[in-house]
């Protein structure tokens, strides 16, 4: 497995690091959000389902952040990255940090991101970065199940009762504005596409859009109008939500600096 740990031999080291952090942070933040449901879901079966998703995402985060730490080459590990960076250093997609809201809102957020992860991981299967390709190979099996779960629920709720329909349509309308960021490529993405590491986002967008349209149709939901790109989580500019989440998540490591757990 080739990794890229020597700065002299990796011309795209900075971009690679950033890219790995974006993927890892998105999985971590989303996993953290889902874990909030444990013990509070609509049914015991859903407690297990959401915990299962959360566990998968935390697992992905660990692999991605560990690799990122190696690429960074400063002696940090997955925990140093997760627990000792402040919000501006996190580069997750803004959509991932949005609060859970009700079950419908969580499902909408999940479905949009599952469909995104599916495209990205699929695109990474043939990455010139064989370690990243391997991580994607493992993650994509999980993501296929996640999408089955979230899209299944979106359909049940969209085409369930009047109340459930209203709730998920509202959630969709509110969360849609965060989807423009999913495919907004910047210089990091461009550098990695050129190096054969990452798939081109524009190419993925069409498939993502078609898949979402299919699910929305089955769910009897209306696709909201397009909104301009204005959220920059992947560039470290977040909504207020991330700060609170990190304060909670990082509390122990911040309070007992240097301790082993």
């Amino acid at each position, binding site marked *: 497995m080739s990794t890229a740990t020597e700065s002299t031999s990796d011309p795209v080291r900075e971009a690679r690091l950033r890219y790995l952090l974006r993927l890892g942070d998105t999985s971590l933040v989303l996993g953290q959000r889902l874990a909030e449901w444990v013990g509070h879901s609509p*049914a015991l*079966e859903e407690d297990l*389902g959401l915990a299962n998703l959360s566990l998968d995402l935390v697992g992905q985060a660990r692999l991605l952040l560990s690799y990122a730490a190696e690429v960074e080459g400063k002696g940090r590990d997955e925990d140093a990255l997760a627990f000792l960076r402040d919000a501006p250093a996190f580069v997750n997609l803004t959509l991932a940090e949005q609060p859970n809201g009700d079950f419908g809102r969580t499902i909408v957020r999940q479905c949009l991101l599952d469909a995104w992860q599916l495209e990205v991981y699929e695109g990474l299967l043939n990455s010139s970065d064989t370690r990243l390709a391997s991580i994607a190979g493992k993650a994509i099996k999980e993501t296929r199940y996640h999408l*089955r779960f979230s899209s*299944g629920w979106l359909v*049940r709720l969209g085409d369930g009762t009047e109340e459930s329909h209203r709730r998920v349509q509202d959630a969709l309308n509110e969360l849609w504005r965060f989807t423009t960021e999913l495919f907004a490529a910047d210089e990091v993405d461009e550098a990695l596409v050129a190096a054969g590491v990452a798939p081109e986002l524009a190419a993925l967008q069409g498939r993502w859009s078609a898949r979402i349209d299919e699910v929305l149709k089955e769910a009897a939901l209306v696709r909201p109008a397009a909104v301009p790109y204005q959220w920059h989580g992947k560039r470290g500019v977040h909504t207020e939500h991330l700060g609170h989440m990190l304060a909670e998540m990082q509390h122990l490591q911040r309070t007992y600096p240097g301790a082993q757990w």
Partner: protein
Amino acid sequence: MSNDWPLYEVFIRSRSGLEHKHVGSLHAADATMAVDHARDVYTRRQEGVSIWVVRSSDIVASDPKDADALFEPARDKVYRHPTFYAIPDEVKNL
């Protein structure tokens, strides 16, 4: 479960070559959900290559009261069991 989440029985084949085994039951609104729930509840440790879910109300079972009539006659037919026959030790592969 409230609002009609009927009961399903769950059968899992844990490895290729084995039969499906009954592992328990769960509630779900529809069959797809039942399979998903079965996966989440009964295959957390990779104990599954195949899942069957059946509505509990669709299962037809023998009545324990009929056990004698259904199963006792088989007890008399000992010639169905290999141990009934005395084969000399020198004969192999029998």
